[in-house]
């Protein structure tokens, strides 16, 4: 192939001049080389999470870029969310609308189809990536064009559309600045909103110099100069393109309106200038009515870019004669979504509006970056979405490691604008993995250990015996009082952390020694009467057994419907 996705191959002008055989059309390296090679499956790149994370953790430049970028976005988001007095009510509204959509998805999708068709658009249904790619390729071919411009879109990343089009001889040009950087570098995105977040500006300069047409020779890494170079490059594409491909942030069922929310205006160029517009959209992107958009237009910009209002919001409904594209196609993509919908807990992941707030606050994402998740959907949302879209094929499937790629710290749930309880979904998906192992009789070391621990920990006598068994650790700790080296798998802990030796006396031994009658309450009560008390009355006080203090007063009716506590602590319970 003489070009990559139709990009003219350019000789390197950067510091990293290729000294390899300069085969005709061979690409000069974009940069020193931290690109992730294009995977065969956009939702399953190859490495398990721990393997990919290990590589990422060793990349000091990546760590610095990510720490800087995520902390900047985090602070911006926190500031603009903090100024909205009804933020929690907005989150609840956003969540409720999406829950309603999931409950009525078939009828709402048909309503959308009717309204798009009535206004001059054509609706296509795609069960999976291959079907969607086939539909889009055929639509482009029917126009006779061999080049298309693209609006940033997760759905087309998910199906690997650019690669599929390239195989059909169609060149797709990404026009979002960050997607352009990723595409030029022959890299993969590492963030939902900021796909080149793993790059800093000097790396971007190098990529532009090596890979982009007509980049000014003396271009520095000043953001303005970089943006102007990209702008000049993209303008040429906008003015010549006859076909555009987009995703969609929202589709309104009751009007047939599509919405794209973006910051640069490049999306709007694509949505208005070409003659043909093809939109690929996941079926969960629906909202029932036009007024529902008001909730999401407040939630999305503040959560994603930390802006009060979105800069470029493009809405279009079918075809408008004499204005904008005269041929509009909407491809509705399933690709695993109905499978996710069938899981009563897992379906909450389909509420996602791709704001990426969960990535920016995630302490794991901040350390390892997006590529470690091995999917175009990285971060906490990726960890619950990717394995549901693909399903898991067992232990060898890298996606089975994704639900474990979290400490369950809960920062993601706290910022999610549609209140997806990501930690609970992660635990749920872990449980599904365990259940699948059991159902398929796949024994695991973890399974055996957990079974043994369950036996020990479900009975106090067995537990107390096991505690005595830990005395061996005291020997290992020796005089240091801590253990610094254990054989595998204990080495996974002691590689970086000491383990304290168990105490000479466990708590229950201490309790039994200091409360010799040992039946729980009795001994404690007697001893307690000898304890000095700040209240002189209490030593003499004999409490009738029935006169329990009125706190925390719980009635049996509360016991049956434990709403109040639950509602406060875990709204989505």
């Amino acid at each position, binding site marked *: 192939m003489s070009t990559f996705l139709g990009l003219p191959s350019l000789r390197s002008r950067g510091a990293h001049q290729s000294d390899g055989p300069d085969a005709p059309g061979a690409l000069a390296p974009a940069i020193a080389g931290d690109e992730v090679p294009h995977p065969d499956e956009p939702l399953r790149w190859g490495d398990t999470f721990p393997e990919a994370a290990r590589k990422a953790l060793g990349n000091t430049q990546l760590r610095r870029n990510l720490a800087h970028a995520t902390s900047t976005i985090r602070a911006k988001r926190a500031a603009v969310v903090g100024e909205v007095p009804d933020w929690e009510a907005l989150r609840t509204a956003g969540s409720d609308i999406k829950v309603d959509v999931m409950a009525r998805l078939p009828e709402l999708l048909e309503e959308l189809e009717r309204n798009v068709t009535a206004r001059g658009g054509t609706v296509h249904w795609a069960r999976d990536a291959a079907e969607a790619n086939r539909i889009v390729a055929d639509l482009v071919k029917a126009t006779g064009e061999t080049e298309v411009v693209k609006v940033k879109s997760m759905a087309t990343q998910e199906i690997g559309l650019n690669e599929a089009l390239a195989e059909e001889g169609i060149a797709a040009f990404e026009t979002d600045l960050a997607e352009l950087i990723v595409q030029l570098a022959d890299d993969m995105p590492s963030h939902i909103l900021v796909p080149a977040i793993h790059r800093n500006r000097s790396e971007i300069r190098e990529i532009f110099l090596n890979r982009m047409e007509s980049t000014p020779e003396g271009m520095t890494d000043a953001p303005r100069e970089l943006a102007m170079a990209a702008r000049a490059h993209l303008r040429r594409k906008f003015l010549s393109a006859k076909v555009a491909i987009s995703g969609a942030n929202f589709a309104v069922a009751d009007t047939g309106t599509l919405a794209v929310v973006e910051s640069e205006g490049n999306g709007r160029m694509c949505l208005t200038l070409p003659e043909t517009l093809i939109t690929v959209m996941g079926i969960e992107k629906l909202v029932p009515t036009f007024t529902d958009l008001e909730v999401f237009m407040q939630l999305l910009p503040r959560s994603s870019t930390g802006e009060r209002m979105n800069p470029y919001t493009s809405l279009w409904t079918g075809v408008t004669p004499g204005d904008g594209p005269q041929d509009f196609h909407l491809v509705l993509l399933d690709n695993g979504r109905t499978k996710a919908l069938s899981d009563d807990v897992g379906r909450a992941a389909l509420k996602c509006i791709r704001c990426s707030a969960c990535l920016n606050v995630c302490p*794991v994402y901040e350390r390892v970056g997006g590529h470690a998740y091995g999917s175009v959907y990285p971060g906490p949302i990726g960890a619950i979405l990717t394995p549901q879209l693909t399903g898991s094929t067992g232990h060898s499937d890298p996606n089975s490691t994704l639900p474990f790629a979290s400490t369950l710290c809960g920062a993601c749930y706290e910022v999610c604008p549609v209140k997806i309880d990501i930690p609970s979904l992660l635990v749920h998906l872990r449980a599904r993995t365990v259940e699948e192992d059991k159902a398929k009789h796949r024994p695991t070391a973890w399974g055996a250990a957990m079974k043994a621990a369950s036996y020990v920990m479900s009975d106090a006598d067995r537990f107390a015996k096991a505690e005595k068994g830990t005395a061996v650790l005291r020997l290992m700790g020796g005089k240091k009082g801590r253990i610094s080296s254990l054989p595998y798998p204990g080495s996974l802990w002691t590689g970086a952390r000491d383990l304290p030796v168990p105490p000479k006396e466990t708590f229950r031994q201490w309790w039994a020694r200091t409360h010799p009658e040992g039946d729980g309450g009795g001994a404690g009560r007697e001893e307690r009467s000898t304890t000095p008390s700040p209240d002189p009355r209490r030593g003499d006080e004999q409490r009738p057994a029935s006169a329990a203090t009125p706190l925390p007063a719980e009635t049996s009716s509360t016991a049956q419907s434990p709403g109040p506590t639950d509602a406060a602590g875990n709204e989505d319970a």
Partner: protein
Amino acid sequence: MVDSSQIPAPTSRITVRIALAATCIADAMFPQAPQATVTLLERLGHEVVFPPEQTCCGQMHVNTGYYADALPVIKNHVETFAPVLDAEWDAVVVPSGSCTGSIRHQQAMVCRRAGQDALAATADAVAAKTYELSELLVDVLGVTDVGAHFPHRVTYHPTCHSLRMLHVGDKPLQLLRAVDGIDLVELPEAESCCGFGGTFSIKNSETSTAMLSDKMTHVKSTGAEVLTAGDYSCLMHIGGGLTRTRAGVRTMHLAEILASTRAEPTRPPAAAGTAPVEVSTR
């Protein structure tokens, strides 16, 4: 959250009967935390009992996805503490944010998914009377000044589950600020996870270590002698890194600091290389 209408005024000196859920990890590895909890609550004039049938809340099994193996552990916990529903005790206290979180948000769910609706209802009812230590002190017992004395430089790490599952807010800090003689310093990036995450620290040990490293950097930047938190699992993780790197910072549970008085001080354990602190209890 606790319904404030159910909370007595702080002035009402009633003796509250409190069942202690010591937690498996503290029972076996860090008895100083439940011991200090007993010392503290008794000093405040309350009765503490230790139901000996207890073992574990089941959190490790649940969070690793082993619901079926968690069920007997949860059943044992719920049955052990069910007498709180018959006014045998007034409340259950847990010196751990994550165990309280699991009791409150996971136990009933696991029972329900196993089709054990009756056990789930009991679990929910027991959970409604179960409090993390700072919740019990501030919300239920209505006390922030527990009469403690601890003349050391201390920084506080708010553990993720206490912060985001229980929403304890600044209750532990209210308690610490009232401690006589304490030099309480703010921990930078305090709300960022330490990287423990239970089995995460094994399954993703390298990422866990990267997070731990940043947490330790922030801890050391405070110049504190003691790092405190409401959960010994997180403290085991951070403390394991601090002793490994000879950082000269000790880890102590919040209860140990609150249990310390001028007459019976809790001495901070040596930073590395000595046996765990012996807490004076009674």
